[in-house]
């Protein structure tokens, strides 16, 4: 590809997510998180710790915001915590929000990586190549959701004293200091599902690949699947709630439908659709 070619056929190369993205995607792994069902119990987060070799860092480092929780269960109160004058109590309970890498199709983290350690895969995943990462942390600085986690130390030295290390999942690595990491949508599970399907000479079916968080959810609040698969549960939910990829603002025929993407207006095109929390008035 000569520079001349690039300049002359600029529009072919300047294919944004709104035009279908820069790949001919094989899959587009996506998710639905139903906040009406999510109880904030945190089972997904601990399931993630056990699946993805997440290190525990201890109180001090957690307090400094260095926790490696790829899936972070956020909790918000309806009104100012202290001194709010509207209601005496949080009588509508809490708002829980499980936040994991939103696998944006126009990811702001990808374009700033000086070594292309984070890039978009033909599966629609925002991948992180640990071996390539030099720890510039530009990506984490550019993530609007703050969902990238940096190994400031060799956490593994303390996180898995013998024989805790025997629990480590051999399907993925343990990260050392200087490396950025984040939710991968359990890429090792996706890989296993794809391998199995190929071995059996068939396409990947809905339900073959399930992320650890979705699998573990007691209320089935998380649905995981391939948004390019018409029959996938996740695709049906996106359709039902009239949310589409590649849009900055959804133009819903029925404005009352619950689906939305967190901070959608930033035009990062996340692959996770959330469904509104519901409360009796």
């Amino acid at each position, binding site marked *: 590809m000569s520079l001349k070619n690039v300049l002359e056929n600029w529009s072919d190369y300047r294919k944004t997510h709104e035009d279908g993205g820069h790949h001919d995607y094989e899959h587009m792994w996506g998710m639905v998180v139903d906040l*009406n*069902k999510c*109880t*904030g*119990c945190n*089972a997904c987060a*601990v399931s993630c*710790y*056990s699946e993805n*070799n997440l290190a*525990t860092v201890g*109180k*001090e480092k*957690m*307090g400094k915001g260095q926790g490696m*929780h790829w899936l972070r269960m956020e*909790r*918000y*109160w309806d*009104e100012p915590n202290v*001194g*709010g004058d509207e*209601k*005496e*109590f*949080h*009588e509508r*309970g*809490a*708002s*829980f929000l499980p936040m994991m890498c939103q696998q944006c199709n126009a990811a702001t983290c990808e374009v700033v990586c000086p070594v292309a350690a984070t890039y978009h895969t033909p599966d629609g995943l925002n991948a992180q190549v640990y071996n390539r990462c030099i720890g510039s942390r530009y990506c984490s600085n550019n993530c609007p959701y703050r969902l990238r986690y940096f190994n400031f130390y060799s956490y*593994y030295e303390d*996180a*898995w004293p*013998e*024989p*805790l290390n025997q*629990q480590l*999942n*051999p399907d993925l*690595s343990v990260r050392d200091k200087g490396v950025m990491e984040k939710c991968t949508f359990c890429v090792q599970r996706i890989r296993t599902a794809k391998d199995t399907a190929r071995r059996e000479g068939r396409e990947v079916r809905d339900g073959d690949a399930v992320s650890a968080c979705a*699998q*573990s959810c*007691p*209320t089935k609040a998380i649905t995981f699947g391939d948004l390019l698969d018409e029959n996938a*549960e996740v695709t*049906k939910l996106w359709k*039902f*709630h009239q949310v589409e990829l590649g849009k900055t603002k959804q133009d819903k025929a*029925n404005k*009352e439908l*619950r689906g*939305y993407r*967190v901070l959608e207006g930033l035009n990062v095109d996340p692959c996770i659709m959330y469904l*509104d*929390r*519901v*409360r*009796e*008035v």
Partner: protein
Amino acid sequence: MSGNDINRRDFLKFMGLGGVGAATLSGCDMPTTVTLEEGKEKVVSYLAPEEYVIPGIGVWYASTCQQCPSSCGIHGRVREGRVLKVEGNPESSVNGGGLCQMAHAGLQSHYNPDRLRKPLIRKGGTLTEVSWKEAWAVVEEKLAASDSAKTGWMTGTVSGHQAVLLDALQEANGSNKHYVYEAINNSVGESVNKAMLGEATPRYRFDKAQSILSFGADFLGTWVSPVHFSKEYAEFRTGDRGVLMVVEPKMTLTGANADFWVPAKPGTEGVLALGIANVLLTKHQADAKLLPASVRKLISEYNVAKVTEVTGVGGDSVVKITNHLKNHAPSIVMSGASAHEHENGYFNATAAMVLNILLGNVGKTIESSGAMPDVKLASKTGSSSAAMRLAADADKGALETLFITGANPVFTVPSYVGLVDKLAKVPFKVSLTSFMDETAALSDVILPLLSSYEDWGTTAAAYQPTEKVIGIQQPLMQPLYAETKGFGDVLLDLLKIQGAEQYGAYTDYYSYLQNALYSLPASVKQGLSDADFWHDSLKKGLIKVGDAKGSLSVKTIDLTAPSFEDNADFPMVLAPSARQGLWDGRLANIPWLQEAPDQITKIFWDSWAELHPSTAKKFGVKEGDVIQVESDQGSIEAQVYIYKGVHPDVVAVPMGQGHENYGRYATNLGVNPLKILSPGTDKVTGEIAAHATRVRISKTGKSSDLARLGGSETQVGRKLVSTVSADVFRRTEGGGNVA
């Protein structure tokens, strides 16, 4: 390949060893890899792998979780002989495919670096590691010299064939001293259910209910069977979405999901229930003929004004709750720890059940859950009064030998009981446990048990309303340590000491269990041969045993009005709340669960004290300040977390932390609120009134940043969590109108 020192055969050899090296070295965090150059060749090759072991392929085996008493079915992923991950067993009617965080963290119980690897016996006052043989010789010698009728057992919830063996052992001993102790229990509720419905744990039909009113029953977090109820809750919330109302002194996980969360003055929950009954009778013409005249009279005394005076709950809230119950019928009214653990706890639970009767819920949304066909296998659920009975028996010298397993009473029983001194009067104490803890530290012999992922067992969940099953607990991997033994095996060995002849034939618990399952009725075995049935059971992880159908019969019991006293010296009430995470403290030695932020406050690796903003203002404290919480039994110190999810008269300190001797992750972390509880028990059941302790708080002058997740407590106007009204939801997704 010419010019290269390595040929194809060498290359393959190298690759083979490398692969095995990774497996044998257990984990990929090792900084070095085994190389031929280094000469580290003592690697056992998988030339002849063990049966079913395919290097690189994970195989899932079914078992049953033992992290809390709910007995959820699990699948454990086993690769190269190690268990790596657990998931819910989709076949299990208890939990379906889901699991809670505590279950996931069972892996870190199993692989915990602080697990006991060898037995310990007390030699000259200190516990010393010995071989199993030596420890067992001590047990045998002591048992031979003691009166077997004075042998006591303190356990957590037990069921299945372990319960059968334990009963047999105690029968052989001629002793009935079995104390089933759980600090987190539903004992008061069970008593009331038994008295008023004829069944201790009826079935709650969340799928039929349109509204739920919970008086402190944290069914999403810590009440009875949280994962089961979470699954049902999801159903309750979909379609024509039900309304959830929660009354409790401190917001629990269930409270945080409520449509309407109301704190009442601690202990007055029953009065609030009667107030709601009053509105139902006066405004909604509820049918009261099932209630005796005395109860009707009592209800009539609690008009809204009186209820507001006693409970502190505004009249509009009382009316709002009542309207929801009426407009969203049928309903379910539940009660749990924060309503039960008072001197009038039985009254509170009874008043809640009176509401169910008035609302016509019994038979509609509260049904019989049937019973295990073989009652000997049924779950023996725990109570806190069991610990009081143990203390009394130990004190009066009724115990010569005490076996303790599945419980840590020295940690969870309040100081005023004086359990440590009383246990000192028991001459011989044996702990069967995987970990050194506060109770084991006082024992004469500690026998290290296999972890729940290494041991055999069967369980019958206390709450399995849709179908009765025997849950199979099968080992997910070989034992990590040679000098450990299974609970069932120890029971068998003890039975053999007692000369119980019918058990002599069994070489181990495995063979006993196999035989016990073989002898299940033919209807349960569904025509399978013994061997096929055994394999089928292990594969599924459970055995459906059919249901002994039951029915509920409503009996009302008399109610006497409680009285509440103020205490000027100790103006506040302590809520030692249960966290789904550390449970009663037994899971505090698991790093994942310490690092997992509390669901409500988002605090990790510590204890804290929750205060309402108005209370904090009154005492001039801000978040992160350390306060002293003082009862007439002592005091604890903790950092303050301020939010509007706690009653202004309440200071909530979660239980689970404050261990003195429980391994590297739990010891000397936080405080144990149970230690400063004041004397007091429920008048009817004798359960410890853990939510009734009067305290006062004071500033210590110390302060530091509170270690918790997230910087912002609100969304600051960003639409991170968007909320719609239930009306909109019912319009778009109700009535089967779903994706």
